[in-house]
């Protein structure tokens, strides 16, 4: 099965070289997408001859993953796996996600809380709200809707390539469940960021993100 690892990277000069070297070790095709970083990310990618796209303008995470899906669609890949460029998704778990796609799932999500208990932080309250909404809308139970570590089968790549209204992971997941795709979660562990700054460091952005997701899950997907 032709598999592509998509790695969005925005200002990840500390992490990206290590991550890319680790992923190359597994032998899958990979594509790093540099979202118009303002630091040395582009230079590092060039010097190490990593397979990468340099976007001429900053698109944000949703746009970058779209670009990754377009690339996968153009090059006729059967499976796409998204891994964050900040090093929080350990590549050890890649093969187990890809194996599930091979076994016939359309969409596989690496969940932090399938077998482990969810902590009671502010962010996890947000996660619980999204779980509840997805349960109400689709009747299916999910444990980690915001997880960015996910694998897509061919049908899902084609559908994500077309539509503009998958703002982020939770509503994409809700859409697929609602449409009756075969969605599966498997347990993975994630690390804290190794460097750089998270998009969700800004509380206003988190609130905006939650509002978009709630609206999208209830009315759109």
């Amino acid at each position, binding site marked *: 099965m032709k598999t592509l690892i998509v790695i969005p990277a925005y200002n990840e000069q500390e992490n990206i070289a290590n991550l890319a070297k680790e992923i190359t070790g597994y032998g899958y095709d990979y594509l790093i997408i540099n979202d118009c970083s303002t630091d040395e990310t582009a230079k590092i990618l060039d010097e190490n001859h990593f397979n*990468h*796209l340099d*976007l*001429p303008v900053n698109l944000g995470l949703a746009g970058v993953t*779209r670009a990754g899906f*377009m*690339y996968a669609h*153009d090059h006729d890949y059967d499976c796409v796996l998204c891994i964050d460029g900040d090093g929080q998704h350990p590549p050890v778990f890649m093969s187990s996600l890809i194996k599930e796609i091979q076994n016939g799932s359309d969409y596989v999500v690496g969940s932090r809380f399938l077998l482990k208990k969810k902590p009671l932080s502010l962010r996890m309250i947000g996660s619980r709200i999204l779980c509840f909404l997805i349960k109400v809308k689709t009747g299916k139970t999910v444990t980690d809707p915001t997880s960015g570590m996910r694998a897509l089968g061919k049908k899902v790549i084609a559908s994500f390539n077309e539509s*503009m209204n998958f703002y982020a992971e939770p509503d994409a997941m809700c859409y697929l469940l609602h449409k009756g795709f075969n969605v599966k979660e498997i347990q993975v562990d994630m690390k804290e960021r190794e460097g750089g700054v998270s998009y969700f460091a800004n509380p206003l952005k988190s609130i905006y993100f939650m509002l978009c997701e709630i609206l999208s899950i209830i009315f759109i997907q």
Partner: protein
Amino acid sequence: MSSGLRLGLLLASLGVFLIIILSVIRRKLNIKYSIVWLLWALLSLAMSVFPESFYALSGLLGIQLPVNTVFLIMTALLYALTFYVYIMISKHNEEIIKLTYEVASLKKELDELKKKNEK
């Protein structure tokens, strides 16, 4: 409507009309988008020249002051126009993502070809 308001509306709509035409001539505004604005200016021109029609409309709607009818129409039109602009923004957003991807992947292919030629 007072005669002062009528005169003001008349002058303003004539001014707007001129600005729109000049913008198109100076290639600052696309003709496609100027039509909406020209219709807008014509409407406010009509309002100031024939206020009687607005008195009749106000009576029909049960609005006591005709000037409020003018405000109502203006607000509704502004809403419609703003919504149209948001739709255009969404469309452009989508086009930008596609174009950005195309540019990036062409650049990648070009770089690879260059490297091949150097070898």
